[in-house]
């Protein structure tokens, strides 16, 4: 084809995207090793002191703990509920299926700030105190559609009578689910869990309304931006977070692809 016709234009475009996207991140990581409080060139020298300070900051470690707790719990619950939803919409011809799908996917399109405010009002009415628990609950709500869609995509790739085959061979409905459906979906379950976890771990807007005194990591980070001297520590933390998040997402993508191959071969 005409890929050879404009080789320079295509590669310039690609390069521009890469630079715009990743240069700020690369700079951040570079500055996290800079031996100065101000983030300006020239480089003052290499240091690990900002990383060292991170681990002496009890408030920060507590925020990390909160984030891990909220992330783990909310993504476990969201994956479970999302899986149930996915089985319901893929395997059963539910009445009102389209309505259910639309409602379930609503958190995908509602701005998080608005969701945060409305949940703040709702939780207040119900007497649910502002806490890590409240933030976790909110994260379950925003994660469910992602979990559901990931698991549903996996289920669609398999013949829909595998559960029937299992029951035909003597398994009860729950036996069929445990022996066939769940094992087949396991790569998708893990992928959904990881995605929900990273979403919860990074989420700021909703958490900032709901966490109360149990600041999660993004909320804590934001609060620290007021203190210029703490900026390098925040940058170091951001560098760690970014590295972890990107690795998890890459692993997740690899998992999704690895899981899809056999489905294509068997499902025809």
């Amino acid at each position, binding site marked *: 084809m005409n890929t050879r016709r404009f080789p320079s234009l295509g590669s310039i475009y690609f390069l521009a995207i890469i630079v715009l996207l990743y240069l700020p991140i690369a700079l951040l990581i570079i500055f996290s090793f800079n031996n100065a409080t101000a983030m300006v060139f020239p480089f003052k020298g290499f240091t690990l002191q900002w990383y060292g300070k991170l681990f002496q900051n009890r408030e920060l470690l507590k925020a990390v703990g909160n984030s891990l707790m909220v992330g783990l719990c909310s993504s476990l619950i969201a994956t479970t509920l999302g899986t149930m939803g996915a089985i319901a919409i893929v395997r059963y011809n539910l009445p009102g299926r389209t309505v259910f799908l639309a409602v379930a996917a609503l958190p995908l399109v509602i701005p998080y700030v608005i969701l945060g405010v409305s949940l703040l009002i709702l939780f207040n009415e119900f007497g649910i105190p502002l806490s890590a628990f409240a933030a976790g609950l909110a994260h379950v709500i925003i994660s469910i559609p992602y979990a559901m869609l990931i698991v549903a995509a996996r289920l669609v790739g398999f013949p829909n009578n595998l559960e029937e085959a299992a029951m035909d*061979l003597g398994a009860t409905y729950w036996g069929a689910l445990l022996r066939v459906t769940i094992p*087949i979906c396991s790569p998708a379950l893990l992928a959904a869990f990881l995605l929900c976890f990273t979403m919860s771990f990074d989420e700021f807007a909703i958490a900032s309304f709901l966490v109360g005194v149990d600041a999660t990591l993004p909320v804590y980070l934001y609060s620290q931006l007021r203190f210029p001297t703490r900026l390098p520590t925040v940058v170091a933390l951001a560098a760690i977070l970014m590295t972890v998040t990107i690795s998890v997402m890459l692993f997740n993508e690899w998992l999704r692809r690895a899981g899809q191959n056999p489905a294509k071969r068997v499902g025809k």
Partner: protein
Amino acid sequence: MTENAVEIRNVTKLFSSKRGKNTEEVHAVKGMNLSIPRGKFFTLLGPSGCGKTTTLRLIAGFEQPTSGEVLIQGKPMTNVPPNLRPVNTVFQNYALFPHLNVARNVGFGLEIKRTPRAEREKRVQEALELVQLGEMGNRKPSQLSGGQQQRVALARALVNQPSVLLLDEPLGALDLKLRKAMQIELKQLQVQVGITFIYVTHDQEEALTMSDQIAVMNKGLILQLGDPVTLYERPANRFVADFIGESNFLQGKFLAGDAEITRLQVGERQVVVRSGERTFTPGQEALFTIRPEKILLAAADQATAGSIAGVVQEVIYIGTDTRYLLQLASGQPFIARVQNGCNSALNEFPKGAQVQISWRPEDAHILAN
């Protein structure tokens, strides 16, 4: 014990689907009564949407009848879930478990019944050898060809020693040559294991090849039940005659008849056909059918009693046979099939030739409708 593996008593299955405000009701099976004898190869044959798969699913327990009841081995199966019925199914798409290897797929049913490991392994190996896949136990289903997957599905069902094996178009996804080979293999396997097979297909040739008994279905009803020879040679109605093989249909006015033969007026000519069960009054319209290969063609000047005239429209040479597409004096199309045996002359009746069409009275018969 009863003689019947499966009995279907007055079973109706209604599916209702909502389209906007209208609820549409579809009778998948209408008041079906059917007894399937033990140890036979039984086939449900019909076009897609005729209710044959629904019937199979009613026996397997994946669907519950709207009314009526299903009995397996003489025991009523109402409210018995699929996992507690003494039947196993070979699914159309095989439905092999992609995350388990072949041996564990086959051993799935035994594993659930907590059969001791040693016995399980022995029976799995026997089942795999029965379907000639003895060496394949460690493969994943995705590493097998379609035909091999089909055999695994068969072994997975047979290893549980069901009273009845249900097969839902299991050969549909295979290519023609493999399908033909598997048809014979399946029939031999059925005789070997002696289990009642209930086979669903829309392929009439497949049904004729394998079955001891066939039920021809359309629109939720059984239109004829019989062995392959009866269905082909003595179709009861127009649908069966049309669906199984090729048929010519002619309309005639009743003249006279007894239990053996009936005289009908077709256009200007009188023809003789075999009498059916229906009785007619003189002048009443009667429909009768003749297979294309039972037609005798003769030159136009050799008219005999009971022959009708036609014109050759098209001559199609297909190797073993020659097909003649004819047109009768009434304008109706008519098909004749002549075997190219050792004493037949090729190109005896070229396109445009006038011919006389006749048949032996016992080869033409009156249909009920």
